[in-house]
Each structure stands twice: as C-alpha cells, then as structure tokens.
C-alpha cells in the first residue's frame, strides 16, 4: 500500500528523522492560512505540493514555491484544479521551502535477490533515481542491512563517505540512514525513500547560517501482508484515491487491477491470471483487467468478482479461467450461475474450468447454457471472438 508524502513524513519523524514542518490542507484558503503561519515562523518561501499517490507531480505542475500568501493561495488553487495521471488533487502539503545547498538520494528496499533490506544512497539526488540507475549505475551506492540487526553504524558511515557526506554531516547522515531502516522495520514497509535528502541552509538562533541535513520528500510503500498487525497504518489508506471497484475487490480479498481493454478476466492464481491476459492479447484482444480470485474461492466471491468486472462499462466479454486445485470447479460454476441471474447487464461469457470437480462444473455450465472452452488458447480465442475486435 502506498501512502501519501505527508503520512510518510510522519513515520520518518516518529523515528527521529529531521523533517521540516508541514500542514495538510484541502482548500486554497486553508493553504493561505497555513502559509501565513509558516511566514510568521520565519519562512522566506513556502512550498505547496499536491498529495497524490502517483509519480511525476513536479512535471505535472503539482509542486509550486511562492514568496507571499497571495501567491501561495493562487498556487494552491491552481494545483487543486489539476488532475495528475487521472487523479484529482484533493489535498495539499504546505510548509516552509528549504534553501537547498545540495541534494542526495537515500532509499531502502526489500531486495528479493540478496534477501536483505538494501539501502541505496547517491549524491545524484532530487531527480528520478531510476534514470540515475540506468545512466550511471556507479553513482548509486548499495549495502545490505543485517537481517537481524538492521543497518549497522559502520554501514551507515560507509554510505556517508561513499556519497561525500563525511565531515560535519557524518553523524547526521548515519542517524538518518539508520532511522530509514528502522522506519522500514517498525512499519513493515517494502520501500522507504527520501528524495531529496538535502543539505539545507538555515539561520540559527544566533543569526548565523547553519547547514544541516533534512528530509524534503518521502515515499513509503507498506507490505500489504503486514497491515493486519498495524491498524494505525491501515488507517492511512487514502480512500479518496481508491476507485469503488478497487475498494470492493480489496474488501472481498480479490486481487484486481483495472486495465483499458474490453475483455474482463476472472482467474484463480496471479501467474495464471497474467498468462490469461497474455493469451487474450496474443489472440488479438485487450484485457479489461487483471483479476485473481485467489485460492479456494467460493460462490459468493465469484459473484463479487463478476460485479467488479461488470462495473467497467468497457467490458464487452468475460473470460473465466479456473484451474481447480484448492478451488472447486463446481463452486465456481455455481457462483457464475448465481451471478448471471442478478447481473446488471448482459455480456457474453466464455468459461473454462479444469482440475478439481471439473466434470461437475461442466455439467452445471452446460445445463445453464454457458459457452465453454477446453484449452487455455481456445478460451482466449473464443473470448476475443465474442468481444469483437480490439479498439
């Protein structure tokens, strides 16, 4: 589960990381008032950032810096009018804009190959790190944290020296890097990124300029499997951005991703679901979704999956592909029969059920006049044929 920047910053703050203050607002007026408070507290400029879960905010005009309250209000109004990658901006982060001296990248990710939390740091911060990885992989320094002890102090120091943050910022950097991994461990995150981690210039209480490290942006992805033991994190789910179909799927325990095609797919197992999509495409069609009903699905779950698929008006045909193992084919057939009895609109359906209780399923489907298919390739071809040509 992705969480918003402001929530990610709160989690970093809880581990003692240096994150400049902010407020989250939902209107240009509130943005203005938050900015006035920031200016009063000494900010020279204020930043306004769209809070959306998709990348590329900056390029889309979702981040603006302004020097007075009027300009902040105007910027906020402009950003709140934006749709970024199809997502309507509803919330803004407002806070003092830092005076950046130099930007770094710092991230931690669960690495499946090394089976470690890998911490990555780069002196090429503030930009798309994937781009740095592609163009100049040597600019990204990597280290595997200890599986039991987390990021060790010497590892944090080694990264600091590697990105040129020895000297006055050594201890600061080490503390941040260790806190990054602690944030990951405490919250069961898959990914924690600070980009940019920046040396910022501030005016100390004595009026002298001081430079210190600060976390200016934060991105955290949580492990869905661990949310059950972190109810406080489950509460961070952004329901504003969640499509009703996505929500129903999540609540039913169905893995669902909407796509742009016309052939709705209902499959058991993620690998087989992807394969089904691949074969639809190979047969000349376009899948409307990825949908995995999981193992051992029963009739009511099948009915829910059908509702979710049909909620997409682009769907012109449905392909059901079930290989019964834990899942019993006759249960699925029964679910399909029930679902069709109450479904909102008539859409042609091709059903393939093999494996456990396949013959019982076949008899039920035949008795209820479903179009069936035997092989995987055959099922895909038939579904494409009934859906008509792809756009």
């Amino acid at each position, binding site marked *: 589960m992705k969480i918003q920047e402001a929530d990610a910053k709160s989690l970093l703050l809880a581990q003692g990381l240096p994150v400049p203050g902010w407020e989250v607002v939902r209107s240009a007026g509130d943005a203005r008032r938050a900015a006035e408070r920031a200016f009063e507290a000494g900010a020279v400029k204020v930043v306004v950032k769209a809070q959306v879960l998709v990348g590329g905010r900056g390029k889309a005009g979702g981040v603006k810096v302004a020097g007075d309250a009027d300009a902040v209000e105007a910027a906020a109004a402009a950003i709140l009018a934006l749709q970024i990658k199809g997502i309507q901006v509803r919330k803004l982060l407002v806070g003092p804009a830092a005076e950046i001296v130099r930007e770094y990248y710092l991230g931690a990710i669960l690495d499946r*190959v090394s089976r470690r*939390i890998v911490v990555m740091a780069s002196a090429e911060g503030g930009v798309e790190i994937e781009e740095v990885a592609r163009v100049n992989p040597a600019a990204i320094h990597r280290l595997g944290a200890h599986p*039991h002890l987390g990021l060790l102090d010497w590892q944090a120091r080694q990264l600091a020296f590697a990105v040129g943050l020895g000297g006055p910022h050594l201890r600061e950097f080490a503390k941040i890097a260790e806190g990054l991994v602690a944030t990951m461990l405490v919250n*069961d995150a898959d990914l924690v990124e600070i980009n940019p981690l920046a040396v910022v210039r501030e005016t100390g209480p004595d009026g002298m300029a001081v430079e210190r490290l600060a976390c200016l942006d934060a991105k955290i992805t949580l492990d869905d499997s661990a949310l059950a033991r972190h109810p406080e994190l489950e509460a961070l789910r952004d329901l504003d951005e969640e499509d009703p179909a996505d929500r129903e799927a999540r609540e039913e325990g169905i893995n669902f991703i909407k796509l742009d095609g016309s052939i709705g797919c209902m499959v058991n197992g*993620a*690998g087989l679901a*992807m394969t089904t999509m691949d074969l639809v495409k190979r047969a000349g069609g376009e*899948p409307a979704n990825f949908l995995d009903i999981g193992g051992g699905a029963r009739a009511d779950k099948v009915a829910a999956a059908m509702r979710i698929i049909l909620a997409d008006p682009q769907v012109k045909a449905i392909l059901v592909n079930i290989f*019964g*193992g834990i899942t019993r084919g006759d249960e699925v057939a029964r679910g399909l029969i029930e679902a069709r009895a109450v479904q909102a609109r008539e859409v042609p359906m091709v059903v393939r059920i093999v494996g456990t209780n396949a013959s019982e399923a076949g008899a039920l489907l035949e008795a209820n006049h479903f179009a069936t298919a035997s092989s995987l390739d055959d099922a895909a071809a038939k579904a494409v044929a009934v859906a008509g040509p792809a756009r």
Partner: protein
Amino acid sequence: MSILVGRDTRLVVQGITGREGDFHSRATLEYGTPIVAGVTPNKGGQRALDGRVPVFDTVAEAVRETGANTSCIYVPASGAPDAVLEAAAAGIATIFCITEGIPALDMLKVVEVVRAAGARLIGPNCPGATSPGRAKVGIIPGSIHREGGAGVVSRSGTLTYEAVQVMTDAGIGQSTCVGIGGDPIIGTTFLDVLRLFAADPETDAIVLIGEIGGSAEEEAAAWATEHLQGVPMAAFIAGRTAPEGRRMGHAGAIISGGSGTAASKIAALEAAGIRVAASPMEIPAILRAAGYQG
C-alpha cells in the same frame, strides 16, 4: 531419485488439525506419501485424519518419535514463521511452507535462521512439490502428474498445474514439480532448484515457469548457460502484457526500473539457449524440439 520429495520422505504436517491442513493432508495420504506425524500445540496425544496420524505438541517430539525428515506447514500467517523456525531447530531437513500472507520482513529473518541451521525451506506461499509416483507434499493436485524425467520449477501455483497438465497430456512425465512460491522473500530460488535438478540422475529435461518481477529468472538463465548445456529445456514467462509499475496480484510481480520485465527475462533465457513458450501449451513441443525423448 527425484529431488526434495521422494521415497525417503517422512512427512510431519504442522497445523494438521486446521481446515487446510486436514484437507490437503488427506490428498497427500491418498497419493501414498507417508505422513508420520502431525503437530498442533495442545493437541499432542490425539490422532488426526481419522486416526491415521499421531499428533504431537512440538516438532521436536514428532521427530524424536517418528523420524520425520520433511515438514509441510499449513499454520496461519501469524504463526507460520515460528513454525518454520521450530521445524528447522528440530532438525527437519526440508520444510515446505504453504501459508500465504506472511509479512516479508518476517521471512527475511526466518530465511537467515533456516540457512544458518542448514535446513532447506521451500516457500512460503508455495504449492509444494510432487515427485510423481513417489511422493507429494503440499497442495498440487496429484491427478495432473505423470511419472517421467522432466523437472518443473515455477513461481506460480495454478499456472504450474496448467503447464504440468499440458505436459502430462502430451505424454511427458515429470521427475519432480516444484512450486517455489511467489512471495518476495522465499527460501529456495529457481537457481537452487536448477542445481538440484542438474545433480539428479532422474531428471533429463527442465521446464522453468517464471513471471515478471525480480531477477531470479535472469539469474537462473545465466547459471544454465554454464551448467545446463545439452539439457533439453523450455520456459514460460507470465506477464508479457502486464502494465509497468503495477502489482499483479501477489507481491512477486512488481516491475521496477528496466529489470524484471518479461522482455528482459525472455531475452536472458533465449540468450542461454532456452526457448520461451508464448503459451504454456507450447511447452511440450519446445521440449521435443530441444531433443527430449522422455
């Protein structure tokens, strides 16, 4: 011989009295695999599966009393990491963890401890393994198999069944079929299984079924280039049409950056001389074309 499971398998089922444990253990017994013990804390002294299997409170006791050497875990996600650690500490050599939904950071630690204990973990979130005609551990339907010489290794569940069924229908039997699981952190990788197949005299061909995300397939391909020349192989990669950057169901399927895409995996496999099927249905033909006679 076969790998991982075989005639020497003496199985203990952890969580044997739960719904899943009971259901699949019956199928395992029917397949002829000796389930010598079950473990459910506080149910020690009872008998499971209609009295056919003694239940113990601890794995250590089960091992001591029955000589179990392989474990299959159906314990719910909250207790499964501990179940794996208990099995490893009790001296179980091969541990299958079927349980899905285990937090990845738990597995990070578990994998490290299991490795240090010298045990082998397959999974979690895996369907298990079958050596047709010898033994079956886990939830792969026994009916799809046929005895033979092709080893199958896969990250997927039902997709594996699909591929195995196609092979069986085409008359190509299997030495062992292994589902290694789709979670980000798993105990046994493609590469580990390829090594085992390479050393198994009864495995004469290999089928590898991967999917997008991670780089385990690329890693396996690189190793195959050096160590599996002359072994007839076929591969399939699910997710050619999956959009980038989205999760496809389980966490096994994240695409990040340029690596981990279907294209990258297919290129790596083809570079190793392994033909990649466009549909699982093509697997038998590819094996035959690669010279497999079995």
